[in-house]
């Protein structure tokens, strides 16, 4: 169930709110660690996406639950609250094994995930947080 990638031009405010959660984390970590953390967040989100795509296509409930579990924590930690909420919904839906609702949630979640990874990639290459 490969989803169309969202444009990197997606509104950062819609993805990360006021951005304070991520900014605070990176500020607290200091310049050297901040860059590593930002890269790792991007890597983890990308890996989650890679694992979630086939899981959604195959309706692999265990894998969907595991990947959304990671996404709940990760998105919530960096303040991506819309993605966080979608991940909670999809995780709950996977527990209930509701195929229809899973299909309905998959598209917006993957779009947000794509947009967020693109946004973070831009910040990594731009050297900013």
């Amino acid at each position, binding site marked *: 169930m490969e989803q169309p990638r969202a444009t990197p031009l997606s509104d950062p405010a819609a993805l990360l709110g006021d951005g304070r959660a991520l900014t*605070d*984390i990176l500020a*607290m*970590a200091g310049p050297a*660690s901040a860059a*590593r*953390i930002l890269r*790792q*967040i991007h*890597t*983890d989100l990308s890996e989650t996406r890679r694992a979630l795509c086939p899981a959604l296509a195959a309706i692999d409930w265990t894998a969907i*639950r*595991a990947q*959304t*579990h*990671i996404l*709940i*924590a*990760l*998105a*919530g*930690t960096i303040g991506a609250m819309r993605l*966080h909420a979608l991940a*909670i919904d999809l*995780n*709950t839906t996977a*527990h209930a094994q509701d195929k229809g609702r899973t299909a309905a949630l998959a598209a917006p979640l993957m779009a947000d995930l794509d947009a967020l990874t693109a946004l973070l990639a831009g910040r990594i290459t731009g050297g900013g947080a």
Partner: protein
Amino acid sequence: MTDHLPLLLIEDTPSLQMVYRAVLTNAGHSVLCAGTAAEGLSAFRASGAQVILLDLMLPDRDGLDLMQDMLAERPEVSVIVITANGSINKAVEAMRAGAHEFLVKPFDETRFLGAVDNALAGRSPRRTPSVRPAAPAATVLPPLQTGAFVGSSDAMAKIHAKIRSVARSMATVFITGESGTGKELCALAVHDNSARASGPFIALNCGAIPQDLLESEVFGHVKGSFTGAISDKPGAAAAADGGTLFLDEICEMAPALQTKLLRFLQTSTVQPVGATRPRKVNVRIVCATNQDPLDAVRRGQFREDLYYRLYVVPIHMPPLRERGDDVTEIAEAALARFAAEEGRRFEGLTPEVAALFRRLPWPGNIRQLLNVIRHVVVMNEGGPVTPDMLPDIVADEGGFTPPPATLAPLTQEPALEALIGRPLAEIERIVIEATLARFDGSVPKAARVLELAPSTLYRKLDGWKG
């Protein structure tokens, strides 16, 4: 801030591990990290870490299993479980298995560091001189600090053991038991034996406060937020910051306030009535009811999600009639205490009285027993306590005899006509007072006939006095 031993962080998502590590290091802690259960167990054994932050979902093993292994090897360690939303039930299971605290991801820095500080503080011998027995299992544990918690029956030995094991964690304790069985003393024992013993213990009876004032009592209010709010009031939750909040008769809390309590439990923040900003507090919750809480959930009286949040470590206080010789131990202890207060000399219970006490059903439990002993001490000069010194209703060994013929159907009472036209509250009071008079003022007997908890009756009587 830094403890001598490092904290052990077991988290498999690399970026989250890095973030948590940065937060902890920034706060002055030394941190050891592991990304799998196997690595975590090795690091646990090699480092001697005493506080462990443990993700429940690990790639190679269930985090709960790992925690149980660690606690089996070193029961004194404090494990803070961290989990995402979907695994609350598992976290509850973890608390029952001995976790110190659980945090639901994502959590803010304050909450995270607060949990770690609590765990470290609970380990400090300076703050908890007799509570944290970092000793081999065979070592005799220090006596439980239970104050007036008298009784050496098997039932109470189990209660003492449970309090001892749960006190050191942050787990919410849910105490059930009939009215008068000592639920508040149990809550106090949990507090007194915890790392929070030096903090406040705030008790609030949810059934005794008018529902429209309860929110203000629990969460506080700011001046001018409603008529009568003439000054800022912090509320019980804020007053219990750093200590324990005991919510008695929790099942009598109004549904709207249950929602707010649930939010409080999820966020650890309180927002006083009329305040614009929430405030973080660090409170351990102990609650109690004389009802069956699950039945209250089934009846729709109590929120199911709140029930699961609160019902982490249940403790059931047995009724006095099931505690064997505890009744005479408690009676003797109370006799000595009341006699000293009244300046009289009693020589203990005679065998007849002791045997009678063991036979009685004690529907009002310890509260009723203490009233009987107080009556004996006040009404007599001293000497051994004999049956003739007891109040009539106790000396009459039947204790409680249902009055089949005494309560005629209401429709046959000529007095019924006199009730018509009166407010329901007034009718209730008339009926309660008449029932009490019928049973010579015995609240337990009247309560049983009225099918009310004795505590409810006591509360109503107190309210009418005011």
